[in-house]
């Protein structure tokens, strides 16, 4: 652990924490505009989090310690996972850092505790959300693994910072097979962040809800942590997609100018992707729950095809 690494960890985590809520509200804003509404202000998610942090916490009488610790565990897992995705600059290699399989497992751990806390309060609604979340997870996990395996196979490494570095050094033109990856990563992004064809993040009322049902029993600062970790999850998955496809502008060493440029370029790219996601969402209606596997299978198919493509070229 050298100074470079510490600087990287602090900067990356701070950036993720500060920037994540903005993307959440931007997507909401884009969706509102697509529907002809004015929408909430862009800083609304920050206000919301601030308000929630000041409120008191109320627990159900039936809830156990799981309910109390799961928000902390959830955000901790996701913050550790966020360190694996370099945004501010690509740090020098450290052993045991940045492995994509470990990254996936961290995400799964966060999801596990979220589902557990949904069950914990004993309300039927939360239990239903958890059950659905686990059903979706068991179908999307193989797809996610396959997509990550395809990326690792193309770039010949399982280390995420090294992957970004490889694409940054060469060009995407050297890896034509990478063209197949974005569509499956995009579908994974939609599923993992509980967006429209799969789930609706806007509402607490519909019977279709998955993510919102699980955090229904949380209140006050704990709810704020859950909301924030949702934003972080979205941001790191977007960063994975962006940095594998368009890593240009990212700095490879820790100079002030380099860091500023990579942050600025990332913000621009992330805002564009957020707008794309908002528009994409507006075009779709929610898919029936039992039809979801069809949607995931397209991502699986494309990831599998990527591997065959790579074998052939």
């Amino acid at each position: 652990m050298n100074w470079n690494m510490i600087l990287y960890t602090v900067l990356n985590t701070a950036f993720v924490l500060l920037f994540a809520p903005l993307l959440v509200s931007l997507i909401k804003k884009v969706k509102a505009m697509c529907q002809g509404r004015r929408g909430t202000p862009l800083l609304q998610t920050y206000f919301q989090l601030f308000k929630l942090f000041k409120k008191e916490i109320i627990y159900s009488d039936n809830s156990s310690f799981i309910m109390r610790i799961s928000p902390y565990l959830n955000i901790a897992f996701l913050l550790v996972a966020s360190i694996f995705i370099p945004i501010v600059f690509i740090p020098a290699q450290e052993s045991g850092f940045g492995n994509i399989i470990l990254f996936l497992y961290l995400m799964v751990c966060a999801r596990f505790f979220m589902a557990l806390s949904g069950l914990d309060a004993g309300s039927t609604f939360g239990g239903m959300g958890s059950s659905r979340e686990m059903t979706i997870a068991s179908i999307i996990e193989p797809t996610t693994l396959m997509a990550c395996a395809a990326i690792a196979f193309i770039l010949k490494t399982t280390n995420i910072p090294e992957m970004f570095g490889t694409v940054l050094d060469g060009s995407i033109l050297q890896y034509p097979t990478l063209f197949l990856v974005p569509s499956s990563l995009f579908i994974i992004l939609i599923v993992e962040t509980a967006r429209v064809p799969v789930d609706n993040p806007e509402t607490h009322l519909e019977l279709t809800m998955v993510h919102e049902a699980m955090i229904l029993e949380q209140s006050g600062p704990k709810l704020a942590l859950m909301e924030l970790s949702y934003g972080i999850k979205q941001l790191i998955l977007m960063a994975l997609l962006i940095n594998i496809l368009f890593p240009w502008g990212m700095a490879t060493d820790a100079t002030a100018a380099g860091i500023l440029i990579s942050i600025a370029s990332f913000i621009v790219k992330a805002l564009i992707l957020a707008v794309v996601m908002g528009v994409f969402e507006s075009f779709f209606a929610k898919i029936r729950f039992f039809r979801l596997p069809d949607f995931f299978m397209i991502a699986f198919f494309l990831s599998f095809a990527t591997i065959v493509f790579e074998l052939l070229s």
Partner: protein
Amino acid sequence: MIDTIIFNDIIHGLFVLILGTAALIINQRSLTSLFNIYAAQSLILAVMAIVLFIEYGTLNLLFIAILTLAVKTIFIPLFLHKVLKRISVKRDLQFMFLSPASSILISAILIFVVYLFFTNIAGDLFADRLILLVGVIGIALALMGMMVIFSRKRVITKTVGYLTMENGVLLFSLFMAEMPFIIEILIVLDLLMIIVLSAVLAFGIDSGMEEFHKKLNRLGIWIED
């Protein structure tokens, strides 16, 4: 002539799009979108033929591109849309034997099997990696079309399966213009396509296979035992 790397990238990108459209054809339920996806797939093939024409300069390829563009991206989809307007069916929700999810899974396995076959058994035939890739994608596309034919219930969707199959063979032949056998397969498939299209046009496009047989039986074209 285009730069080799860029040429390879364009070709790869187009292959990716073709595979994507094939996956969509397997699980799309709305008939309107199904025809649009088919038109898009044919358009990609036409673009590919044009790119190959610019690279190799064979006039044959240009004709293929024009033919594909005229017939498969404009005429056939328009015709199908027109037919769709007259019938009451707007969606094909029935699947036989396989759910769409499992047929996509199987087509992924199919691609891999075709790949194994081409590299292990027919590997010597294909010195060029690009030709090998084309072979795998083309044959896999034809097999996926076949899967559409047997997993869909409506006759009109089966037709799209035939058309996809034909696209696969066309893709294969684009890169091997000197193989007359391929052309023959293409013609046979075209014939099949025309037969299905015209039969469907004549005898109730909105019926399932069984009713269709009955209708044919009544007319004395198909004798059932």
